[in-house]
Structures are given as C-alpha cells and as structure tokens.
C-alpha cells in the first residue's frame, strides 16, 4: 500500500518564495565558457575539437569515453580557446581537464539533420538518440541517461517515475521548470515511455506548491495521455530522495544491493525529462540548464536559464551582485550542498542552485559535545539507520561494525546532523568513513573471487590426476591380460 510520506525526515523552511517570484529568464552572455570533460558520472568525455577550432551552438565537442559516459556540446558559438585543466566546482576548485570556449556572442546554431519522430524509432534507437543529446540526470547525480535507460531495457512492467519533489531548501529550479515548461516535461515523459519502454508514468511533486500542480495537470490534460499521472507527496525533507520517493509512491523498497529497476521502476528528474524533450523535439542538445541563484548574500534572488560553462561570478553579477552580508558560496542546497572556495568556477550539468549564504541563511554548528544517546538522529533518519551507533563506531574506526549498522546505506541527507543536540557533524563523519569501508568491501569481494579461482584450480588438478590414474590403471590391466 503506497504511503504518502517518508519515514523520518524533517519539516524545514523551504526558503523558495523569493527565488520563485520572478519569471525565468536567460542568463546574460559571457565571454568565456569553461566545460570540464568529467562533469558527468562515469568515464570523462574525449574532446572532438582542438584549440583554435571554430564551434557553433549545439555542436558536439566531446564524445563518450566509455560505456558509461556522455556527449558534450558547445553552449555557444565561437572558438575553442584552449583544452586545459581549469578549477572545477565538483572538485572543490581543484583542476579538471576542460574545454574553454571564447564566445563570439553570435549564437550561430549547429545545423543537424532533423531527427525522425520519436514514435517511429525503436526503443533501442531512441535510447541511442537520447544519448547523443548529452543528456545526463539533472537532479544532481549527472548519471548518463542513455546508460541508465539501457540498464533497465529488459525489465518487464517498468514504471517511469519523474521526480519533481524538490525537497532541499533553497533549490527551486525544478519548481520553476514545472511552472513554466510543464509541456516539455510531459513531452519528455512520452519520449521516455517509448524509450524504456514503459506503460505508466507518475510525476511526483511536493504538496506545498499549488501553482506547480495546476501547471502540470493542465499540460498532462493537454497531451491527452492517460499513461501519465500527477501525484503529490507530503512536503518533507528528503521526500525527493530517489529511494524514498519510490517507496512513497509505489510502496516498495529498493534493495540495498540493487537498483530501482529491480522493483520495476525507473526514476528520472523532471529536468532530465525536459532536456530529453528539447533534444528530441527541437534538436537542441543539453547546452544549458536552469540554475537557482538565491541566498541573503545576493541582491536579487531568482532562477536563470544558464549556458553551461558560465562562471558563477557572472551569475551573481547578473543578479545584482553580492550584498554586504555575503559569507559562504554553496553549490546545491543548504543540507547537502558543497561550499565552494571562490566564485570563479563554471556552471556544470550538476549545478542546480547557487546559494550566496549570509549569516541569516547559515545556522552553523555549536561546539561539539559527546553524544548523549538521545535518539533524535534515528527518529529522523529516512534510511532507518542508527546514526548514533554509526557515530560511536566511526570514532573507533570499527569497519565491520559500521558495515553491520549500514554505513553504506546512508544517503548523506544530513537530517541526523540537523537534530543533534550535541552538535556532532554526523554526515561529515559518515562521508569520511565510507571510502575506508568501501575499500574493505572491495577487498573482500576480490578475496572471495580469488578463493573461487583457487578452489576451481584445485578441483581441476585433482580431476586431471584422477583421470591420469584411471588411464594408467587401464593400461596396467591391458598389459596384465595380454601377458
């Protein structure tokens, strides 16, 4: 029985009123765009251009580097200024190999052959076509969408879930998308239903924005597609977490060692669906995305349609500049966003929001006290963990105990952190311990594989010896008979 709210979670102030007051508008053009080649999950893309090449808007400039990789397209027309390491936001400012494009501001578009109508393509062809648009998961995980669709290709009874439950405070880019471009989302849903293939689609949103519900409902009605339904979920953080949303909508749990496809579900962000629509219907590959610029540290709070590669400093300037209270620059939301060391970093496919946070936005931690075992943390944990116990064992670096208590199942939402009276930085501790545990689990998996090979070899040698003994015994018998 599908429930309508997640387990645990927090009721947080969404801080979205100011950034959703203005209509979406494109960001102002900038002179230089920096595109890291590894801005998607999986293998970095390989450049197709070199320094000095002329490029047009939408031209493919990098191709997938492996099975799980993505295309990259130029977000502007101009010249390739360089292909060199540049500070990247997803590496906290450390350099990543990037294609730097000098924008000639002419917006010359790349002319590509008009694709066949999506209904005429087979699911396999359509998946490949989607991949060529450079589409990746725009909810933040930036997993190459074509690879994700391929992984569920042979699942029967697949259901599509479009995640519009934008639960983290400050982020409102999906909300604006759903209000202003609901048609794109619905079209994208229809394309994805054909590409998976799947028979039903649920678009899930939180229940605190009636405007959004209305916009989506009318677009769904317009499309006359009964396969697509809208569902509202209780506004709680983190209702929009993939696993939590699947459980809320469909009442099943994603196995800890499996994927949503194991419970016949494919979950994609509404932004991804809209990007699919723009590519399949309008031949416009993924070259821009909606970014929320918000926080008390910036003058004007709003959502902008930003070409990839635009420096974040330019977005702030576009929104009136910093206020005197600016303190911390966060890429993402207030609960899971990453604090950036400076603003000369480019917008990438994963950049859903920039929070220019001031003291009013931040509620920093007090001094850390010992854990008093109050249990607030386990009451709010959406993954049904005991963060208290994970904390004790993380202090002791007891990896087997951390495994038993489910450290790898932690979704790092930060709810436990939020409610801890002892102000313990729990999410950070767990993030720190995960690599060590992951390494140990990998070592155990390869030891198990080695044991299997060793046992197989021992069995083979024994068999060879037995067969040899049998042959020799037969020979002895024959000789005995003859003599």
């Amino acid at each position, binding site marked *: 029985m599908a429930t309508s709210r997640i387990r645990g979670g927090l009721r947080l102030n969404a801080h979205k009123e100011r950034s959703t007051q203005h209509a979406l508008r494109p960001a102002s053009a900038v002179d230089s765009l920096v595109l890291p080649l590894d801005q998607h999950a999986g293998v970095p893309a390989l450049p197709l251009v070199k320094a000095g090449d002329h490029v047009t808007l939408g031209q493919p400039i990098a191709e997938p580097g492996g099975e799980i990789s993505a295309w990259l397209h130029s977000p502007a027309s101009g010249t390739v200024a360089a292909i060199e390491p540049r500070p990247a936001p997803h590496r906290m400012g450390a350099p990543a190999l990037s294609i730097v494009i000098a924008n000639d501001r002419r917006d010359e578009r790349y002319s590509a052959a008009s694709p066949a109508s999506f209904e005429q393509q087979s699911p396999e062809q359509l998946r490949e076509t989607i991949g060529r648009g450079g589409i990746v998961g725009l909810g933040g995980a930036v997993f190459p969408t074509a690879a994700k669709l391929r992984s569920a290709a042979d699942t029967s009874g697949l259901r599509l879930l479009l995640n519009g439950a934008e639960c983290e405070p400050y982020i409102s880019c999906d909300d604006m998308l759903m209000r202003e471009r609901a048609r794109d989302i619905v079209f994208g849903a229809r394309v994805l239903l054909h590409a998976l293939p799947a028979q039903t689609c649920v678009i899930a949103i939180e229940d605190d924005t009636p405007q959004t519900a209305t916009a989506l409902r009318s677009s769904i009605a317009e499309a006359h597609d009964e396969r697509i339904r809208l569902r509202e979920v209780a506004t709680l953080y983190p209702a929009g977490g993939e696993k939590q949303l699947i459980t809320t909508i469909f009442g099943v749990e994603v196995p800890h060692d499996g994927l949503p496809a194991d419970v016949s579900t494919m979950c994609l962000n509404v932004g991804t669906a809209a990007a699919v629509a723009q590519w399949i219907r309008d031949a416009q590959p993924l070259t821009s995305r909606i970014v929320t610029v918000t926080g008390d540290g910036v003058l004007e709070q709003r959502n902008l349609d930003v070409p990839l590669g635009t420096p974040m400093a330019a977005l702030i300037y576009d929104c009136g500049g910093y206020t005197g209270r600016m303190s911390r620059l966060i890429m993402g939301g207030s609960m899971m966003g990453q604090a950036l060391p400076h603003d000369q970093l480019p917008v990438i496919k994963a950049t859903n929001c920039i929070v220019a946070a001031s003291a009013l936005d931040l509620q920093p931690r007090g001094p850390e006290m010992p854990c008093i075992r109050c249990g607030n943390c386990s009451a709010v944990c959406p993954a049904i963990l005991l963060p208290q116990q994970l904390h004790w064992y993380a202090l002791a670096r007891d990896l*087997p105990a951390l495994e038993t208590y489910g450290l790898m199942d932690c979704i790092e939402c930060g709810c436990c952190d939020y409610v801890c009276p002892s102000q313990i930085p729990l999410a950070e501790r767990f993030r720190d311990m995960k690599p060590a545990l992951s390494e140990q689990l990998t*070592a155990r998996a390869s*030891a*198990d*594989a*080695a*044991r299997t*090979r*060793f046992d*197989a*070899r021992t069995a083979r040698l024994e068999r060879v010896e037995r067969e040899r003994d049998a042959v020799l015994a037969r020979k002895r018998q024959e000789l005995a008979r003859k003599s």
Partner: protein
Amino acid sequence: MLPAVLTMVGLAAAAGFAAALAARRSQREQTRLIDEIDALLPQTQCGRCTFTGCRPYATALANGEADINQCPPGGHATAAALAKLLGREPRPVDPRFGSVPVRPLVAWIDESACIGCVKCIQACPVDAIVGASKFMHTVIAAQCTGCELCIPPCPVDCIVMRPAPT
C-alpha cells in the same frame, strides 16, 4: 555451616563441569569456525604462513596449532580481526613470516624476456596467468593476488612485482 559449604562446592563443581562440556566444540561447529576464519583471510594462497594455502591455515588456527599473526598479506587488520574472532591476544604480524605490503602488488611478466615455458602458469594458485607452451605468458592483473609464487620457478627471472593498477 557444613551443608552451606557443601552446597556451594557442589554448585561450583556442577557449573564447571557444564562449562567444560560446552567448551568442547562439535564437529559441525568446528567446520563453521574454519569457514569464519577463512572468510577473514585475504585468499592470497601464498604459503608465507607456512601452510599450503589459506584454508589449511584457517584449519590450523581453529585447532589451535597456529598463531594469529602469521599472515603478512592480511596485515595487522587481519591479525586483529582473527584475534577478536578467536578470543586471543591481538598482536601485530610477526616479521619472521614476511613483511606486510604497504600497497597491493601484482606480478608483471616482462614479455620481451619470456620464453613460454609455462612454469609460472603451473605455479599460480589462482590461474591468473594466461598462456601456453611456447606462447606468450601474461598476468591478468585484476586476478593476481600478489602471492609471488610465480617468481621462483621462472628460469629467466622475468617476473617482477608492481603496484596494482587502481
């Protein structure tokens, strides 16, 4: 006085007898213990512990015929885990059995020197070397456990240990 003393002594004796009975492990429990010990070992199958593989070492540990600090590839973490499982005093790995590798190592065959004699292929306990007589031999790095058993048999000394690829 005397009845009280006799009762206490009797109870203590009964408890001690029951404890001694419980301490004797059944055959099935013994096998399970060997499995549990084997699960903690790194399956390098190198023989540095003086036993012919990881499972014989596990069996010896279960029978109390070996100590917990004899496995260099497992490192101090494995020694500590074995000590915890068997209720023995934790100790670091004894350097007489070998040095604990700082990082994982895999074997690498210098193909320019290889003569195709298959001696290393026969020696590898996990079949991680590909090749045949008079054909090139090569180590599948992902399957090499770093046991170094292939190095002594090579007549042209063309195998070295290198850091495992990440």
